[in-house]
């Protein structure tokens, strides 16, 4: 073997796709949609308000859907109970917040953000722990069988929601943001809620973290391979079960995180809060391409921003716009914007 050949292979066996080879088209489409909307909306300040609001909403959807991309997109578990972890996250946030009013009532940005982060951590860990139990009792039996997954996770969701109602009661509860995160910034004629900005920051950080941990480790590969042929991946020496459990826990934890973000936006909570975004989350994941973090992120933003434009321009179409978008994307790319798997 000559040296030359070796070094050549080292290059070719390294990173697969360079940045240039990436598929930029969907991103271009998002930007194009925004620009076309600008023409129709006319007023730049209204456009900006709509765009920023849509962006924040998209981030929120992404955070809630992020766990689902792992569980449904990568692991191929159609978890209809995902919403239950969102609910649990929301209620944990509520519980923690009522315990540490000191930090949240203080009009101090740093303290407030710290409080919020603490809430997120508790909610994510709590939901993750519940996810672990859920995996053991509910999901373990039904890997590979979508239909049973739908039913059993639905059952699990009902049980969790009912337990939440046993603990916290069925009445609607009010939850308030830490003081300094309330209100909005006015920039010229456009407004942005402070909280929405925070969501954009959290969403972006989450996206980058997930993107790098999946593309720089073999976890994503292992899971996809394990879903396709669990026997073979074990025969290669991997403890696929552990990985599945771990990923499920992370997915549930992310749902808990999403629950925190969502409940603060919503302002009040009831036990069925988790179900509200689930259809949207599923749409976003399908549209993005199963298992693709980037796809989930882009399509969450696309859906939300477009929904805002349409709601402003032709409100009658607001509800159908998402479906039309979904059908259009699927007709264009039957496996979603960034297809990762053949499923």
């Amino acid at each position, binding site marked *: *073997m000559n040296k030359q*050949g*070796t070094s050549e*292979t*080292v290059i*070719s*066996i390294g990173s*697969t796709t360079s940045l240039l080879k990436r598929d930029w088209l969907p991103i271009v489409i998002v930007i194009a949609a925004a620009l076309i909307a600008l023409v129709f909306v006319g007023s730049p300040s209204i456009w900006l308000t709509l765009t920023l609001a849509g962006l924040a909403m998209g981030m929120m959807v992404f955070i809630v859907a992020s766990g689902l991309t792992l569980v449904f997109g990568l692991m191929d578990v159609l978890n209809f109970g995902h919403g239950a972890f969102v609910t649990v996250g929301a209620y944990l946030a509520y519980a923690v917040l009522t315990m540490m009013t000191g930090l949240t009532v203080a009009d101090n940005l740093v303290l407030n953000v710290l409080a919020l982060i603490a809430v997120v951590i508790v909610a994510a860990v709590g939901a993750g722990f519940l996810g672990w139990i859920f995996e053991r009792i509910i999901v373990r039996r039904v890997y590979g069988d979508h239909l049973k997954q739908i039913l059993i996770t639905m059952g699990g969701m009902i049980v969790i929601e009912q337990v939440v109602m046993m603990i916290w009661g069925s009445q609607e509860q009010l939850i308030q943001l830490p003081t300094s995160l309330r209100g909005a910034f006015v920039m010229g004629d456009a407004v942005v809620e402070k909280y929405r900005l925070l969501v954009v920051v959290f969403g972006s950080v989450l996206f980058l973290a997930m993107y790098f941990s999946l593309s720089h480790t*073999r976890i994503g*590969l*292992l899971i*996809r*391979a394990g879903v*396709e*042929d669990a*026997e*073979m*991946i*074990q*025969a*290669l*020496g*991997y*403890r*696929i079960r552990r990985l599945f459990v771990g990923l499920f826990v992370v997915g549930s934890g992310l749902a808990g995180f999403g629950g925190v973000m969502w409940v603060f936006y919503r302002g009040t909570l009831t036990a069925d809060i988790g179900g509200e975004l689930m259809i949207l989350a599923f749409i976003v994941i399908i549209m993005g391409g199963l298992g693709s973090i980037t796809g989930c992120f882009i399509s969450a933003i696309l859906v939300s921003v477009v929904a805002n434009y349409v709601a402003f321009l032709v409100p009658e179409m607001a509800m159908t716009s998402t479906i039309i978008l979904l059908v259009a994307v699927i007709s264009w790319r039957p496996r979603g914007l960034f297809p*990762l*798997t*053949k*499923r």
Partner: protein
Amino acid sequence: MTQPILQLENVHTYIEQYHILQGITFDVAENGFTVIVGRNGAGKTTTLRTIIGLWQAKSGTVKLRGQEIQDQTTSEIARAGVAYVPENMGIFGDLTVRENMILAARRGKFDTDRLEWIFGLFPPIKKFWNLAAGNLSGGQKQMLAIARAIIEPSDLLLIDEPTKGIAPAIIEDMIDAFLELKRMQTTILLVEQNFAFAAALGDDVVVIDDGQVVHRGAMETLSSNPDLQQQYLGLALNE
């Protein structure tokens, strides 16, 4: 003689309610090359799957270097140094060739020399490095399955019918490859229908029929004796 690396003793395996392996007993000698032959449906694949732990033996023992492994999980057995090429090849079709390979390189890095060697053996692997493995041709998939099993050194290599669908020229190379592996201290247990291929490589042979071992011995004995072939394989090969 040294202790055999793998010993099966009176192994019984059930699939659902069917009694498939009905008392399989044989040894695989360290650094040797053992071939299992037998008719379709005899239980060859089941034997390999029982060894790697994909089926659970209902009774009997499977020993790897004297250690009983029949109750261990597949991943434990694999990590104990057993590599496996399944009959259906077990290719991850959604993943690229490279990704298939990197999963087999357990530390996440390739030994470049070994990779070069594989590229030399199976040129399509290199050529289609970034292609989704599901799109490979039948023979190319088979090559990938073997490449995946040999990218890391292992103590025992279980291979289920590697030559099916492989063109003669590559079979040639495969013979060389297996011989080289053998030189590199890998023990190979091969299930094979292509008797010429088996005969070219095997030291020992095990004939399975109806879930039982009907013949064990040196390859020489069988390959040179048409009567035995007629008896065990239903067909004399050197007419």
